[in-house]
Structure formats: structure tokens, C-alpha cells
């Protein structure tokens, strides 16, 4: 980078700290920082991580590996041990292909002094003012709170999916998304299929009409399930639920929301819209007992779109069963049997993506986000789509929990708030176990789901 030009440049720090109006106007001009200028730490894009679990740690590593001058300077988690683990995993060279020394070693750009490690429910408030970009990877229930705060403080955002666990949360995200648009803040949501070559190539061709109009589809996340964290002696109920968050709806949203959102989002992407109605069934057959909280282990939902077509959805957490995580669509002129494949109506291949050496989509989403931020461009506004995908999944859960038809407008307007009244380790979470340690599980026909 030209040195004269460098002196003239507004430092990114000042620039992002400015008022909303000023930020907006400056964003329009390109910020003259080239990739070669990387390692001058004064100009670094300062990143803060909120939520230091496995995914948050992954996001931080990808931000640091984005090819831009990124520094990790602050971290927040509900638990100190998770934060420390995250930092030690980031520093472990086995977790990355990046060269272990020299200028490309991202570990030299991790600078999180003890006074910039924050712990507890309010830790996010302390991270946000210290950084230019916020990575949000806490359990999904907290997403609306953290995203609102980041947008309020004029920060660019990477946040994981889903973006809420209930309709009030989705509405908060939609409102904050609108603000982030006005402020021209880049927002990327971790629905990484949008950043994955095979999906971009595939959906692009479907949108070109290669297989005609899409008249039906099937989407799946049938897998074995995820981790269980055992209750430890001395834990409050709130701490236990925060540790074993996957199994509590206020935190996770059930696996139809937490995982299957990816496939439902692809359906919306292909259909260029969200469903207007859902009907389905689900339950808990294999994964029962106190350590799996209140969520179902299977859901099957039919989603109706505005043009009268249906997408069938299945998600399951059961071992030793058929596993499939995929999407398939039928068009008037052919079929799309799996991502990267298109057949004409006689079954002949018309497109096949050979993706063995494709880039890591989790890396691509950060590469693109940080390239935009480094050049001062406003390019990514994923929050609204993230909210719609989340609502699609929540509507499915409302259908399987209630056993009834759920309409989009009613689902989105639902005032069923799953979140606790008070966030503290001595506070009661919104769902509590009975005397045997079992949690109330939704019952179709009985449960009020919206």
C-alpha cells in the first residue's frame, strides 16, 4: 500500500465508531487497505467472539484465516472454562491448515488479554464496544438480544443460524435487520450453503429454469443426533440447561430449528419465498429420558408454498437408521435429485458438479464478509433471510407440537415467548423438571404451540 495514501486514510477504528449517519456515508467510499497491508496491527479489523463453543471457535478461526488484517481482541461466554478451551483450541496448530509460523500464522493475530475476556449472561455488552465486527455463536435463543446490541452499536456481524427460537425473537431479528440495512452494516448468517459452490451452481441453474418450474421437493436432516452433557453435582438448573442447551427449546428451538433449518432454507431459496402453511407430526421415540430435555427426536412436515406446491420435510435424531442430509426437487422439465445434480425429464444428466476439491463454505462466508468490510463495501444483508428460514423451521415445530395446521401469518404473529424472565444462574429457566427429573414434552392435540 502506498504510504501517503495510508496517512490519509481514516483508521478503521475511528471510522466504525462514528455515528450511524457518518458510517453510512463513509461506507460508500472504498477503504484503501490492501491485503498486502495485512500485518500492520493498527489498521486491523478488530473482532470479538460472543459464544465460545465449538462453532464459535470455528467462526473465529475462519475470521482470522479470511485473508484480511483481522485481529481477535475480545471474547465472551457464559462460562469461563468454555472461553479458555476455545482460546487454547484456536492456538493449537492441529486445528488449522494454516502455516504454523510466519506472516500467515493467524495465531499471531490473537490478542485477547485477560481484561478482554468476559464471562456471564451480560458478557456480550462488554465485548461489543471493543470491536469492529462481532461473531455471534451463542445458543440460538440469545441471538435476538446479541444481534440487536451489535446493530445498535453499529457493528458488522457474523451470526450463526438459527437466529431465534420463537416468533417474538424472529420479529426482533427482523426489526434489527432493517436497522442494519439502514446503517449499511454487513451481516452474514451461517446458512453456509449460500456460500457453498455446489449449492450456488445448482440453485443458480434451477433459477434459470433448467428443470422448469419447481412443483415439489423433499428436504432431510436425518442423522444420529448430537452430544449430551451430563448434569454435574452442584449445578443450578439454569447452569445445567445452559450446558446441555440442545435439549431445551428456549435455547435451541428443537432440532428441526437448530439443524434442519439448513435444508428448509434451501427449499425457500429454490422456491424464492417462504411457505404459507405447515402441517406435520413428530414425537420422541428413541431419545427419551431426563438427559434429553424436552425436544422431539423426529419431525415430518409438509410445507405449502404460495403457488400451491408442497415441500416435504423430515428430520430425525436416531442412531442405526437411514441417514440423509440433503435436498431434492422436481420440476416440470426435470428433477434435481441431490445438490449438484440435475436430470432432464427422461432421467439423463444435464448437470453434475464434481466438487471434491471445493472450498470450505464456512471459510468462504468469512472470506467474503471480511473482504467487503476491508474494502468498505456494503454487500451482505443475510439477517432477513436468516429470520425467514428460522421462522419456517419454527412454523414446522409449531405444526408438529400442536398437531394442527399452522399458517405463516399466525405463526409469525405468535406471542408465545420461550425465554426466561431473568438471565442469571440462580434464576429459574422457563421449563423445569418434575420430581423424577423428566421435562414436559410437547403432546400433539394438547400443547399450545403458538
Amino acid at each position, binding site marked *: 500500500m502506498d504510504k501517503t495514501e495510508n496517512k490519509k486514510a481514516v483508521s478503521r477504528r475511528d471510522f466504525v465508531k462514528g455515528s450511524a449517519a457518518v458510517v453510512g456515508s463513509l461506507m460508500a467510499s472504498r477503504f484503501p487497505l490492501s491485503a498486502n497491508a495485512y500485518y500492520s496491527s493498527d489498521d486491523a479489523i478488530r473482532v470479538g467472539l460472543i459464544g465460545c463453543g465449538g462453532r464459535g471457535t470455528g467462526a473465529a478461526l475462519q475470521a482470522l484465516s479470511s485473508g484480511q488484517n483481522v485481529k481477535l481482541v475480545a471474547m465472551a461466554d457464559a462460562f469461563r472454562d468454555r472461553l479458555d478451551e*476455545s482460546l487454547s483450541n484456536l492456538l493449537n496448530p492441529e486445528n*488449522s491448515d494454516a502455516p504454523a509460523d510466519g506472516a500467515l500464522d493467524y495465531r499471531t493475530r490473537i490478542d485477547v488479554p485477560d481484561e478482554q475476556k468476559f464471562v456471564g449472561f451480560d458478557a456480550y455488552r462488554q465485548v461489543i464496544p471493543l470491536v469492529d465486527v462481532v461473531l455471534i455463536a451463542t445458543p440460538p435463543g440469545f441471538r435476538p438480544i446479541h444481534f440487536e446490541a451489535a446493530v445498535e452499536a453499529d457493528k458488522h456481524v457474523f451470526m450463526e443460524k438459527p437466529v431465534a427460537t420463537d416468533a417474538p425473537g424472529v420479529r426482533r431479528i427482523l426489526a434489527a435487520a432493517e436497522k442494519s440495512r439502514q446503517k449499511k452494516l454487513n451481516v452474514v448468517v451461517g446458512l453456509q450453503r449460500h456460500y457453498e459452490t455446489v449449492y450456488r451452481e445448482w440453485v443458480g441453474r434451477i433459477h434459470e429454469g433448467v428443470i422448469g418450474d419447481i412443483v415439489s421437493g423433499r428436504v432431510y436432516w436425518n442423522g444420529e443426533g448430537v452430544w449430551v452433557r451430563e448434569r454435574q453435582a452442584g449445578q443450578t438448573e439454569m447452569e445445567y440447561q445452559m450446558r446441555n442447551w440442545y435439549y431445551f427449546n428456549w435455547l435451541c428451538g428443537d432440532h428441526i430449528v437448530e439443524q434442519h433449518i439448513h435444508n428448509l432454507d434451501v427449499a425457500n431459496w429454490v422456491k424464492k419465498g417462504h411457505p404459507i402453511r405447515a402441517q406435520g407430526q413428530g414425537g420422541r421415540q428413541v431419545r427419551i429420558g431426563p438427559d434429553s430435555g424436552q425436544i422431539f427426536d423426529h419431525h415430518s412436515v409438509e410445507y405449502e408454498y404460495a403457488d400451491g406446491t408442497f415441500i416435504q420435510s423430515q428430520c430425525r435424531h436416531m442412531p442405526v437408521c437411514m441417514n440423509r442430509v440433503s435436498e431434492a426437487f422436481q420440476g416440470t422439465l426435470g428433477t434435481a435429485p441431490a445438490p449438484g445434480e440435475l436430470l432432464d425429464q427422461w432421467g439423463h444428466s444435464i448437470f453434475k458438479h464434481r466438487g471434491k476439491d471445493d472450498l470450505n463454505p464456512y471459510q468462504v462466508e468469512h472470506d467474503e464478509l471480511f473482504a467487503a468490510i476491508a474494502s468498505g463495501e456494503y454487500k451482505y444483508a443475510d439477517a432477513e433471510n436468516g429470520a425467514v428460514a428460522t421462522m419456517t423451521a419454527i412454523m414446522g415445530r409449531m405444526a408438529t407440537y400442536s398437531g394442527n395446521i399452522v399458517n405463516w401469518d399466525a405463526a409469525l404473529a405468535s406471542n408465545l415467548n420461550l425465554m426466561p424472565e431473568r438471565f442469571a444462574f440462580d434464576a429459574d429457566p422457563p421449563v423445569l423438571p418434575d420430581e423424577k427429573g423428566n421435562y414436559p414434552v410437547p403432546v400433539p392435540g394438547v400443547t399450545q404451540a403458538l
Partner: protein
Amino acid sequence: MADPHRSDGDSAISRVTEETIAGTGVVFELVLVEGGSFLMGSPDDEVGRDTDEGPRRRVSVDSFWMSTHEVTYDEYAVFRYENLDSNVSQADSTTFNADAVARPSPPYEDPAHGMGNQGFPAAGMTQWAALHYAKWLSDKTGHFYRLPTEAEWEYACRAGSGTPFSFGDDATALDDHAWHYGNSDEVFHLVGQKGPNAWGLYDMHGNVAEWTLDQYAADAFSLLPDSAHSPWVEPTRLHPRTVRGGAYDDDPDALRCAARLRSNLNWKRRDPQIPKSYWWNTDSPFVGFRLVRPVKPVSGEEQENFWRLVLGE
């Protein structure tokens, strides 16, 4: 162990045997690979050759039993899922406890990418997970099973041949012997559908590529002493490690006896967590494995040392 059911008239020792995994009903077949020496690697003028396949070296290996087929989903499943295992072991010397076995965590997605389970190769596991299977199988059967070294693998693949493929040098004949990009429809197939090599081993070329025990080093052959015996590049890093045989989604060059593939972290690219799964690769459904069982007895202590070394435990 079941009695040998087939004998080679020229040999005092039976050439094929079976192993029944105790208490599970799962059976697999092994063939005896007589020790000997061979030229490891490919000649400079081999079509499709990579420089890491040379210089060719004369290498010898000891006799070993090798599974005739790639380890199948069925075999791996009784290790992967505790409810399919039993608390029975054939080993006299070990006390097997099914509850205490380290078993694969649930994968992020189907590691086989929906290509099939029963009768299909077990696929998408890390080398560490393949080795854990071998240890479990050793505890379960009382026979010492492990991954083959690169040298053992290539010796077995060549089955006495010095040509690019064990059946000769004509890649157009590959369809009779292997699943590759041109004939596989880009999915792996039931094991054992194609013709075996001269020593009775199926799918050494193609279908799924196979883990070996070695750290990958591009210059591994040039560092070998003359007439090396049982060479093994002991791993010190997670990647790259050496994978052999090529797969259903590879072009013929990658299926040659001498072709070497190196593992890398991109095979876990869609695993969203750090640290990524120790057990599963999200993006290597084209990698499986087969096991060998050395003929020469390996003491309990040697076995323990081996597992400590390769599993880092």
C-alpha cells in the same frame, strides 16, 4: 476364530480364513499374503505418475493376513453402535468390556453421504477412527489387527505385478477390476463386485481409497535404505497421512498401485466445530480401509506400545 475353510494345495498353511466377530454374527474373510520383496513405487516413465512415487525401492515385508474386502459398514457398525455389540470376546488374554470401549461420536452428517450402508464399505472415518476399530477388533478377537503400512498395502495390491495396475498396464481394462469415476456413477458400490487381484483381494483399485499406517512424505522413498524391511513412516502429525488405491470418484491414474493420496484438513471442511470431530470426516466419503493381521506373533506389550503410539493415548 473359525477354522480355515479353503486350502491351497501347494502350501501347508491355508490361504483363506474367516474371522467371526464374537457375539455379533458378523463374519469377514482374510487371505494370507506371503511375505517377500518387491519394487515399491513406479518407474519414471509410468503414465500418470507423480514424482512422490519414486525413486523405486526394493522393499520386503513379512507375511500377513489381509481382509479380502474393504471393511464394510456391517463390520464397522458393531463397533460404532454399542447396542449392536455384545460383551463377548474370543480373546482369552483380554477382558473385554463393551461399556468401556471408546466409540465414534455421532457424525455431523452421514459420513457416507447417503451412498449406502449394509454391504457397502465403511467410509468417511478418520485414520484415528479406523485404528480404534482395529484396536476394538483386536480386543474382541484376540488377534492383532491394524492398518497396513504403505509398503504392505502396495505389495498386496501389486500381487506380484510390476505394472501400473495389478492386472497390467491397460487402463481400459479397469472396468473389470475397479469402480472409478468413469463407471461408478459417482457412488461407491457393494464390496467385491469386481474381479479380485491374483492374491484374492477385491477393490484394491478404486471403490473407496484406503487408509494406511504411514505419515505421508513426498520424499519417503528416497529416504528408504536399500532393501528396506517393513518400512513405516511413523506419524508425528495429524496430516498428511497416506491413503492408497484411489476411489469411485477418481480418474484411473489415481487408482494405480503406486498412486499416493495425502489426507488433509479439507476432508473435514463442512465440520463446523473447532476442534473438529476426531472420528469423522464430513468430506471424505471416498476413504475407507482394510485391515491386516501379522502372521508373526505380536506380544501383548508390543501391541500396547503400538496402540499408544498410533492413538496417542
